C-alpha cells in the first residue's frame, strides 16, 4: 500500500497543537473521565454494566490499542467516544470537546467493526457521498476519492455496487471512507477482521504510516498479534474494567529471561555457551527460531506473483488454505494482486 506522501511526520496540523497543552507529544486527543455505561432495558432496569469508571488518555501521534475478550467493553468505549452512545456517568472529551458535539467529527475518521455501507452504491459513489458530508468542494472531492481508491487498491472495481463486493473489498471501502477527510484521529474497530493475511498486513502498514504522518490512531481488537505489531500503548479491558494500561514494549518485556539472537552459530560455540550458563546455575534452551505464519504466507504469495505458474514444494500451503475462508482469500488475493 502506498502512503500519503503529502503529509509528513513533521507536518503537524495547527489545530492539533491547540487541542493539547502545547507540547505536541503529550497533547491529549481523547480523554475519558470516570466513564461508565450501563445498558438498561425499556423499563429502565439495569441489564449490563458494560463499562465501569474508565479513565484513559490517548495522546497525539500514538497508536493506542484497546484489548479485551468479547463483551469486555471495547466497542462500547469506541461508541461512547464517537457519541453513538451516551455515557451513564462520566465524560468523554475528544479534541477537548464533548463527545456529543457534532463538530468534533470534522477531524475524526471511523472504521466500524463491520463496514456498514450502502450496498446499492458503487465504491466511487460511496466515497463521493461521504466527501459531500464534509462539505468538500467538487474538485477536492474528486481528487480525494481517486487517491483513496488507489490507496486501497480498488481501481478496477470502483464502478461496481458494493453488494457485489467480497468482505475484504468492502472493508477497504470502509477504510477509505474513514480517511476521506484526512482525519487527525482515526478510530478503528477490529480493523483486521475479515481480511486475509495480505490485507491484514497492509492494514497494519497503513496504521503505521498514519502514525508516521502524525495522526492518532485508536484501535480495538482481539487479534493480539496485530495489536502487538502496531500499538504503542494498550489498555486491556475485561468485564468493563480497565485491567492494564501501558507501553506495549514495557508490558511484554519478560524481565527475568534473556534472549540472544545470532547467525550461524557453530555447535561447539553453542555447547560452550550452554556450559557457561549451566555453570552459573541457570538452565537454558537453545534452538532455531521459527518464523511467523504471516511471514511464510507473505513470502509464498510474493514469490508466486513474481513467478506465476511456478509451484513451490507444498506442505505448508495446504493447512494454510484450510485455515482461511478459501473462496474469500482467493477473491481478496485477486483484488490485492494488482
Amino acid at each position, binding site marked *: 500500500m502506498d502512503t500519503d506522501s503529502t503529509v509528513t511526520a513533521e507536518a503537524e496540523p495547527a489545530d492539533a497543537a491547540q487541542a493539547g497543552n502545547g507540547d505536541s507529544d503529550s497533547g491529549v486527543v481523547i480523554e475519558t473521565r470516570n466513564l461508565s455505561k450501563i445498558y438498561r432495558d425499556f423499563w429502565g432496569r439495569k441489564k449490563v454494566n458494560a463499562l465501569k469508571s474508565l479513565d484513559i488518555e490517548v495522546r497525539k501521534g500514538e497508536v493506542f490499542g484497546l484489548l479485551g475478550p468479547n463483551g469486555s467493553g471495547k466497542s462500547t468505549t469506541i461508541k461512547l467516544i464517537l457519541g453513538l452512545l451516551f455515557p451513564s456517568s462520566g465524560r468523554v472529551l475528544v479534541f477537548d470537546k464533548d463527545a456529543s458535539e457534532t463538530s468534533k*467529527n470534522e477531524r475524526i475518521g471511523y472504521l466500524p467493526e463491520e463496514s456498514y455501507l450502502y450496498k446499492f*452504491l458503487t465504491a466511487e459513489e460511496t466515497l463521493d457521498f461521504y466527501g459531500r458530508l464534509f*462539505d468538500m468542494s467538487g474538485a477536492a472531492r474528486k481528487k480525494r476519492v481517486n487517491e483513496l481508491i488507489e490507496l486501497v487498491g480498488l481501481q478496477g472495481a470502483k464502478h461496481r455496487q458494493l453488494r457485489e463486493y467480497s468482505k475484504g473489498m468492502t472493508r477497504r471501502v470502509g477504510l477509505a471512507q474513514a480517511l476521506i477527510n484526512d482525519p487527525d484521529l482515526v478510530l478503528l474497530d477490529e480493523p483486521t477482521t475479515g481480511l486475509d493475511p495480505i490485507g491484514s498486513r497492509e492494514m497494519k502498514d497503513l496504521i503505521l504510516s498514519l502514525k508516521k504522518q502524525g495522526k492518532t490512531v485508536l484501535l480495538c481488537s482481539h487479534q493480539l498479534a496485530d495489536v502487538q505489531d502496531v500499538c504503542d500503548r494498550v489498555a486491556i479491558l475485561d468485564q468493563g474494567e480497565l485491567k492494564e494500561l501501558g507501553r506495549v514494549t514495557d508490558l511484554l518485556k519478560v524481565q527475568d529471561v534473556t534472549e540472544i539472537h545470532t547467525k550461524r552459530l557453530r555447535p561447539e560455540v553453542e555447547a560452550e555457551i550452554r556450559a557457561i550458563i549451566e555453570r552459573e546455575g541457570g538452565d537454558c534452551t537453545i534452538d532455531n527460531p521459527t518464523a511467523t505464519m504471516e511471514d511464510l504466507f507473505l513470502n509464498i504469495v510474493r514469490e508466486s506473483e513474481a513467478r506465476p505458474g511456478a509451484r513451490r514444494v507444498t506442505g505448508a500451503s495446504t493447512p494454510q488454505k484450510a485455515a482461511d475462508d478459501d473462496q474469500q482469500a482467493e477473491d481478496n488475493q485477486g483484488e490485492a494482486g494488482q
Partner: protein
Amino acid sequence: MILQPEDFWSFYEWLMRPESFLESAFLQGIVLFVLAIVIGLMVGYIISANRYGPSEGFYAVARAVRDLIRFDLPGTSAHRVFALARLAFKEAIRRRVLFVVGLFVALLLLAGWYLNPESSDPARLYISFVLTATNYLILALALFISAFSLPNDIKSKTIYTIVTKPVRATEIVLGRMFGFMAVGTVMLVPMGLASYLFVSRGLRHQNLEVVDVVEEADGSLVGETDYVQDHKHSFTIYPDESGSTAQGLTDVVRGHRHIVTRDASGKFEIGLPQPLRARIPSYGDIQFFDRGGNSKDAGVDIGAERFDAGGYGSAGISRVIGLSGGSRKVQHGYVEGGTLGKAEFTFQNVTPERYPDGLNLDLSLRAYRSYKGDIESGIRGSVTMKHPTKDIESNPISFVINEYEVDELLLPLTPEGTDNNETRKLNVFEDLVDENGQLVLVIKCLDRSQYLGVTQSGVYLRAGDNPFWWNLTKAYISIWLQMAMVIAFGVMFSTFLSGPVAMVATFACVLLGFSAEQVYDTRHFIDSGIERGGGPIESMVRLLRQDAMTTQLDVDTTAAKVIKTTDAGIVYSLDAIATALPNLPKMVGTAEYAASGFDILGALLLRHAAATLGYCLLAFIISYFFLKSREIAA
C-alpha cells in the same frame, strides 16, 4: 358536490378568520406548535430525568433546545442536506420503487375493461378513477419508503458512518424528507402524463354520420348523429348573420358535445368531442325568501337533511372547545313553488370583459315533489336578472330542473324586461348591473307546492374555462402535498419507532385524518343529544344487542350514563387529535373538483400548501429532538 362555506374562503379568510379568530387556521397552527413544544419539553424532561436524575435532566433538555437554536439550525448545510437527499433518492430508485409507476400503467390498461363508458358522465368516472388510483398508490408508497428507511439504516448500522461525520440531526431529517419527496415527484410526473393520456384518449370518439336532418321554417337545420359508444347527439344549426349554416353544436350528452360542420356540398362532418375543461365558477351570495316574500337565512327544510348531514365542519379550535355554535354544514335550501318564495344570488364583478358573449349560468339544482303531479315532465323553475337596487328586471327565463347534472343556460345580454313597469329591451351591463358591477339573479320554482333546492355553490356564473391539463396538474399538486405530509409524518415516527411500528403509526394518523369529519359529526350528535348510534362503546352495545341506531339506548340508567360518559371522553379526545392532524379529506376532495369539471380554486390549493408546510415544519422539529436524543448504537 356541495361546497361548504369554508370552501369559498380566500387564503386570508382561512388563515385569519377576521370575524371569528377562534376558527382561524393561524390560531390552530399556533396552538398546535405551542402544545407540541410544551408536551415535548415535558416528555423530554421526564425521560432525561429518569436517565440522569432531576437536575441533570433539566440541563440535558435545556442543552438540547440550545443546541438546536445555537448550533444545529444555523449549522445546517444545504450541501449535506442535498447529499443525504440524493442518497435517499438513490436508495429508493435502486430499490426499484419506480415499479409502482409500472403498476399504475398496468392498472390503467386493465381499467379500460372495467370503466363503463355507458355511464352518464364517463369523464367524471375516468378522472376520478385516475386521481383516486394515483392518490392511494402514492400515499401507500410514501408510507412505506418514509417509515422504513431510517429504522433500516439504524438496524443495518449504516447510520454509524453517517452520524460519525459532521452531520447534524437536522440534516438527516431534512435529507430524508426532501429525498423521498423527490422520489414522489419523479413518480407523480409520469403518472400524471399517463393519466392525462388515458382520460383524453379514452374519452375520444367520433360520431361519423348524421341522420334525419330537417330544415326548419327559420332556416335552421335540426338533426341527429348516429349511435356511437352507446349514445347519440341531436343538433341544431342556426343560420348566422350571413345566413350560412356551416357550423353548429350538438347537445350535451354524457358530459360532452361535438362541433358539427357542413361543407359547401351539404355534407355534414362531426368533430371530436370538445376537450375536457375546468369551469371557473364565479359564485354569488345567496339570500332566501319564504312564501310570504320575507328574507330568511335558510331555505325551506324538506326533512331531516340538515340533521342528517350534521357535523360542525372543521371549525378549528372553536369546535374543540365547544364554541362553534352548532351544525354549520350547508345542504340544499328549498324554495316553495308558486309563491313569493325565491332565492336571490348577488354576483360581483359582472363586466362586459368577463362575459362578452352572454352570461353563462350553470345550475345544479334539486327538485322535491310534495305531490306526484305530472311525473313525465320535470319541475320547472325560472331565472330573472334584476338590478340590485333599482326596480329593473328581465323577463323570467324558464327551465326544467335536471337533477344531478349541471344545467347550462346562456342568459342573453339584451333581454326583454321591465323598467319601472315599462316594458322595453334591456341591456344587461347598462341597465341591470349596478355601478359596483353587481347583478342579482332570482331563482323561483314555477310549480305550485313543489320545491326547488339550491345551494350557494349550485348556482354560478361561468366567466371562462381553464384547460383540463392545468386542472389535472392542480389535482396532482394536491396529491403531492398529501404525499409530502405523509412522508413528514413517516420520517417523524421513524426517528423513534421501528419500521413496521412507524408505518402503523403513520397509517393511524392518515386514517384518523381521513375520518376527521366523521369524528366531528359524531361529536355533533353527542353534543346535541341526537341518537345516531353514539360513540364507540355505545355502538358496540347496540351492535351486540342488535338495536337500531336511532332508538334510545335500551340499558339501565346507570349503565347508560357510564357508557355515554366514557364515549364522550373518547370522542372528545379523538376530536382533539383529529383537529391536530391534517384534514386529509379536504385535500383528497380536490380530486372531486377535477372530476366534476370544476377548476380547483387557487385559494384552496394555497391553503393546503400552507397547512402542509406547517405540518412538515412541526414533524421536522419533533424528528430533530427524537433523533438528537436517541442513542444510535443502543
